[in-house]
């Protein structure tokens, strides 16, 4: 009975998605740690890290889809929330270095010693404790999103204006984090991490564990997002997307609905960033680059806006393409390819890869399934 309800809650493709992520979480550790390197089934550690990175992006995409795909808020600043979560984790990792830094200072990270600072700035306090850092991972992006949303949604900033100010937000943070005197390591950012929770960050076992945790976090994020979009709250979000003023006239406080989902989405982005940093080993201001936020929008559009699975899928597919592109002689053309992909999807596949898969499935699988409610409306 409960199982049946759960299956219906997920819908077919949600089930497929969960099964895939669960399979990755189970198989990747086995294929990396237990299968010997010579075997064709061996997954090298570099691949584990790459997959972990994709899963972090998938989390960010699900968060972004909640605000854009379901509620119509085209945020071009979600990269900032991702980066802030990453910095919070980076600060914890910096504090774990202790005396192992180049200057061997027991408390101050190297870059502060280099700048001749005598003591730790107030906002670095507490980051030596993991639970505190984890709290900040959620709280800092959440609070910024809340304040931003409070100002923007209450004064009814919508559409392209909202996109522009969200882009300005991430750009302002980019400039701020570049400054050495901000206390976040300037343009070098935070790096040379040693341990996380006492485990060496670079060790193979730690990397696999981080991958597994990311996979589980992605599953958790997906279930949470699915719960939201299947509730009446999710229906109100779609109502806002399709006819905002109508939603007000039947008595919903649109600004509060937007504020809640926007804040939650920023926290998801922050968590994704926090999982990203120990796997990649560095966080620097380039994560605030406006293009990062725009790329995230492209992932969601490619996968299928307004479908959580599509958003996650889009993140993985586009980034896999990016990896292929940017590691070869094609590297200079990546941005053109990305732009082309976006135009192609917008024109030829307005419902993204998931919509395409659904159409193919309906044609050949016979079981014709109409579009789900959220994806049927294609108002940009």
């Amino acid at each position, binding site marked *: 009975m409960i199982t049946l309800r759960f299956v219906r809650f997920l819908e077919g493709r949600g089930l497929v998605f969960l099964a895939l992520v669960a399979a990755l979480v189970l198989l990747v550790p086995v294929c990396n740690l237990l299968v010997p390197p010579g075997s064709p089934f061996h997954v090298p550690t570099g691949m584990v890290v790459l997959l972990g990175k994709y899963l972090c992006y998938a989390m960010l995409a699900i968060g972004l889809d909640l605000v854009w795909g379901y509620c119509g808020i085209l945020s071009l600043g979600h990269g900032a929330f991702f980066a802030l979560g990453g910095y919070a984790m980076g600060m914890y990792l910096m504090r774990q270095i202790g005396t192992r830094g180049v200057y061997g200072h027991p408390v101050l990270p190297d870059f502060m010693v280099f700048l001749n600072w005598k003591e730790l700035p107030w906002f670095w306090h507490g980051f030596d404790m993991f639970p505190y850092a984890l709290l900040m991972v959620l709280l800092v992006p959440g609070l910024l999103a809340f304040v931003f949303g409070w100002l923007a949604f209450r004064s009814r900033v919508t559409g392209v204006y909202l996109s522009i100010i969200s882009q300005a937000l991430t750009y302002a943070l980019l400039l701020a984090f570049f400054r050495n005197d901000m206390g976040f390591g300037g343009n070098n950012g935070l790096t040379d991490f040693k341990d996380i929770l006492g485990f060496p960050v670079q060790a193979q076992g730690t990397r696999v564990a981080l991958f597994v945790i990311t996979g589980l976090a992605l599953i958790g994020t997906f279930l949470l997002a699915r719960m939201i979009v299947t*509730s009446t*709250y999710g*229906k109100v979000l*779609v109502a806002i997307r399709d*006819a905002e003023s109508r939603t007000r006239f039947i*008595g919903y406080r*649109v600004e509060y609905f937007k504020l*809640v989902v926007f804040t939650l989405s920023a926290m998801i982005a922050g968590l994704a960033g926090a999982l990203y940093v120990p796997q990649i080993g560095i966080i620097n201001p380039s994560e605030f680059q406006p293009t990062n936020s725009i790329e995230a929008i492209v992932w969601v559009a490619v996968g299928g806006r307004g479908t959580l699975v599509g958003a996650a899928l889009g993140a993985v597919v586009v980034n896999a393409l990016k990896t292929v592109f940017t590691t070869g002689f094609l590297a200079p053309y990546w941005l053109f390819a990305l732009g082309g992909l976006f135009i192609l999807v917008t024109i030829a596949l307005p419902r993204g890869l998931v919509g395409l898969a659904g159409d193919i499935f309906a044609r050949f699988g016979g079981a014709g399934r109409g579009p789900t*409610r959220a994806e049927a409306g294609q108002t940009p």
Partner: protein
Amino acid sequence: MNPPSSHAVTGAILYLDGVSVSFDGFRALNSLSFTLEPGEMRAVIGPNGAGKTTMMDVITGKTRPDDGDVLFRQGTIDLTRHDEAAIAELGIGRKFQKPTVFESHSVADNVLLALKGPRDPLSALFGARNRIPAARIDAVLERVRLQEHRRRLAGELSHGQKQWLEIAMLLAQDPSLLLVDEPVAGMTDAETEATAELLKDINRDHSVIVVEHDMGFVRALGCRVMCLHEGAVLAEGSIDAVASNPRVIEVYLGR
């Protein structure tokens, strides 16, 4: 603001006095005044651009008047101080001139979203709104004869069906005052007749203002009629009195 305390105010569910609205110097409402008694139905006619929709915008908080009083419920509530969501909560529902339903939601979900009840994010996320019995939705859909369409997407409905769905949403919302803007545009004669019956039925326990151009329909409603022209009331009375008023005839023919 000092609400005047004559009977006109204390007895009326809706009281407008000297309401003016300008758009870039153009006066869409020009010192508009009228009152609506509780339980009353009022038909509003008037040529294009007379200010009928603007009047509804002012009452529902979409447009703030430059001048004048807009009072609700025996003068106890100043509507100009509230926003759209608050006014809806106070008990004023509205059907738009251009039917606006939530196109990517099913017909049933459109009604579900409109149903009376708490509307905060928390109750939408976990609360009572997730456990509304289907029978409550069906009861509303039955009144507008859309029950067979409950699972269809609202965007797939015909123009007339959308109009009815919007009326169904009003019924679900159960406001004390309904503002209905051109409900029969695009309907067949039979549908128009059925809509008149439905509105009369709704009027048994709700106050209603109906804007409509269709004179046959207005006659079928059998209520007091008010003709707007250039943002003010030109004539008010029974349908026959208003229809034979020379100034009313002039503004209609003059166009």
